[in-house]
């Protein structure tokens, strides 16, 4: 049963202040790049925004709206990037993104999950990856002589994107090896992290898969899971605790590990590279949406008092600095910042691609335009889906570099 009613408080709290649509004043730089909600910027109507979606949710809860006339398209065109959520939470105690998730669950229950997302879910169910490729080929890119450490309590979770971008997985391996980190791969036991399920409201399927994955980690004696995929990382931290007990499991992104290795001198970098001016794009699921989810089941008393006290995810403790530390450590690389960075980063639009490809393409082009305006010769990020979106040939084309791959290429010979 969808838990839309759990978010009634949020739905009834919105004062239309507009914080969900616009950059926080502390970050304002000018007329351009001032909007943080690409959905609202592109489509224009207020319904296309965090505020609009929670009000659609309210009308669904009150039985005033039916699916079938376009809500589902709007609902899944929203990339669920969390900009609205974080900006709202800078001043309010509301759960905008969770309300959107709950609305998605409601939509799935009503039988209106859009077809492309149904297909992806079917792929995950049948082949344990989002592409529908044979599960047996998940690690086909591994060199035949690769050996991991079966006794390690750290796993490298490569993610479904290894099918498309094995270079990222290989680069992650190189980095861990060079830094002397003992790890193992889960191989056939590694299934999709479940992001395409829980983020699209497919609660039942998500719960089943996530619990299965957590059991798998435990069964393998894993205490730390490292991934180079921002989506997987954000799911482990922001999604998994909703469905399973992840006590004792620590999740890290490769950039966190690499930054620590660099600071301890355990990674040595090559010198003498060509100068390159880059900007770093903060992936939503690595940045503002990667704080650990802490379940809360309590009472909201008058004047907003949450009993027991709630741990809020306001985006402050996302992974922002470590990727930048890595870039600053690379000789010849000059880092310039976009206006919308850190917790205000504009989403790349990838998550909207299946349902609203025109909007998704526009968003990616906008982000590239912003990167160029910052003076960047290339855009760097560490999410394979951002790579799909930003590295595409659309308008404002700009070279895209994956940070994990870039770092691996700059390593001196491994230890």
């Amino acid at each position: 049963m969808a838990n839309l009613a759990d978010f009634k408080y949020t739905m009834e709290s919105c004062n239309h202040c507009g914080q969900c649509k616009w950059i926080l004043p502390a970050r304002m730089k000018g007329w351009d790049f001032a909007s943080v909600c690409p959905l609202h910027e592109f489509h224009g109507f207020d319904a296309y925004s965090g505020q609009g979606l929670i009000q659609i949710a309210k009308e669904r809860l009150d039985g005033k709206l039916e699916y079938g006339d376009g809500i589902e398209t709007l609902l899944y065109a929203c990339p669920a990037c969390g900009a609205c959520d974080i900006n709202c939470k800078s001043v309010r105690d509301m759960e905008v993104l969770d309300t959107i998730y709950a609305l998605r669950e409601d939509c799935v229950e009503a039988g209106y999950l859009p077809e492309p997302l149904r297909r992806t879910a079917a792929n995950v169910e049948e082949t344990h990856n989002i592409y529908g490729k044979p599960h047996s080929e998940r690690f086909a890119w591994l060199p035949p002589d690769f050996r991991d450490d079966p006794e390690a309590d750290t796993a490298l979770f490569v993610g479904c994107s290894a099918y498309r971008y094995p270079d990222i997985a290989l680069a992650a391996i190189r980095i861990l090896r060079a830094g002397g980190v003992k790890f193992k791969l889960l191989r056939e036991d590694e299934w999709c992290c479940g992001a395409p399920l829980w983020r699209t409201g497919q609660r039942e399927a998500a719960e089943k898969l996530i619990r299965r994955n957590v059991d798998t980690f435990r069964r393998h004696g894993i205490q730390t899971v490292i991934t180079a995929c921002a989506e997987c990382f954000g799911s482990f931290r922001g999604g998994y605790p909703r469905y399973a007990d992840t006590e004792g499991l620590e999740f890290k992104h490769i950039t966190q590990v690499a930054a620590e290795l660099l600071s301890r001198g355990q990674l040595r970098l090559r010198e003498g590279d060509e100068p390159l001016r880059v900007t770093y794009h903060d992936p939503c699921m690595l940045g503002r949406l990667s704080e650990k989810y802490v379940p809360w089941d309590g009472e909201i008393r008058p004047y907003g008092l949450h009993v027991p006290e709630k741990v809020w995810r306001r985006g402050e403790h996302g992974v922002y600095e470590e990727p930048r530390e890595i870039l600053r450590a690379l000789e010849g690389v000059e880092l310039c910042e976009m206006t919308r960075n850190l917790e205000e980063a504009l989403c790349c639009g990838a998550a909207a691609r299946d349902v609203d490809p025109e909007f998704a393409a526009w968003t990616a082009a906008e982000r590239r335009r912003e990167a160029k305006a910052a003076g960047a010769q290339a855009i760097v990020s560490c999410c394979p889906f951002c790579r799909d979106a930003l590295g595409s040939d659309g308008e404002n084309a700009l070279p895209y570099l994956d940070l994990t791959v870039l770092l691996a290429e700059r390593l001196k010979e491994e230890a």
Partner: protein
Amino acid sequence: MALSAQAYRELAAIVGERYISSKQHILAGNRVRTPEIPFDYHSADAILLPGSTEEVAAIVKVCNKYGICFVPFISGTLPDAYANRAGTVLIHLKRMNRILEINEEDRYAVVEPGVRHVQLYPEVRKRGLSYTAASVGPGGSVLANFTSTSGDHHTQYGSSRSNRYLLAVEMVTPEGEIIRTGSLQGGCGWFCPDGPGPSLRSIIKGYFGSHGQLGIITKAAVALDACKGPAEIRTEGVSPHHRVYFDSDLSRVYVFNYDNIQNVCQAMLALGEAEVCSTVQKYFYLPLTLLMSDSANDFWKKWTSGYKEAMSMPLVVHIAAQSVRDREYEEKILFDVVRETGGKRLPEELENWWTEHMDYFMVVSRLQSVLRLGGGWMPIKLGADSVQHICDVGESIEEYIYEFTETGKIFDAPENYQIIPMEYGHFAHIELLFMWDRTNPAAMKGVGEFRARSREEDLRRHFHAEDVGCLNPTLLQLGPLYSNCHIWMQKIKESFDPNNVANPML
């Protein structure tokens, strides 16, 4: 009366199919009740997004042809931005979002309605200029602020209310004609709102704007002041704990607590006569504590552990000096005045919040955190007159508010009013902000009672604590007491909007 298919077609022909919708889920984005309102809004029949003045004029003409009411809006923060009856279309002006000109020499900017504070403010600041950005948060429309809402802001002590800074405008009348005011009417550009002779500026905005009842403003020029502070904003940290600092040699904030509004009044007048300080405001302690809080729970901890008492009557002062010597001079006078009037400086950790959040003094950011206690809030009074008179109004509140705070009808913050002087103390504005538990449906009754009582008490005392507003029911209640202005406003409305289609509220 629902929109006829023919009317819809004609409207769609103006803006294009992409920019009109009557789908229910689209309309839902602009009709769900906001927490401070006791009733559901009407649903609009359609929402349109025009892209130019010409499109707006054409839409208005179609509305007149078919008797369709229209309501212009941008951010939709106020109740006046919603349909209040069937047969209404919402004209969402967000696509008209160009900054047409920033004239550094003549010190004005020309904007379309969709330009927001977070867009214009940094652009003018880069040029060493600033303007009076009202306290509506980053998404507030500059044009709407200057022309429709009150346009009060927290830094108007050393400047003034937005009324003073509104220059020439272009407006589409309720019949779809395009008129211009001031120097623009005279063919001489944007710099002057007045003339030729008596001014059409008179129907653009009085104390408040008309929220589209006398027309839709499609371009406006706003005057710019010198910027006191850095051109580039230096931000540290990440939301919600980011910090914005200014150079402390020239820019400092002080917070003093008082126990008596008349002493605050003395202080305000004395500082104003000395023409020192950039911001002086008797702030309100509930928002002050909320601004400093990370969550409602954090607020409750602070509120019940001494913040309420420590900041019961805070005077917030910001000095933005042109030189170190100037700052020292202003500080000397400030401390003299505070000492003479019995103010006590707050502990550093409480004062530091302001020092670390200098963006407050630019676009008054984060003020939406006053909504953190659930969103049931209402600012009342909102009138202005001399500093003394307004402080007298403030002083009288304690004579009737306890009846409501002690019975739990409204939040227990009896001194929660703010007074902001303008033009170095020539006048001041008052806002009594009260909150209630909006999760309790019965609370709205108490809200209505308190609001009525506040008005009743002010009228009984012959206080000018409130203005009559635009052409809404309050006008009919108060108009007879205010030089029968309701009669004149209705005559003007009838003359300019004979078909009564422009956001009718009566």
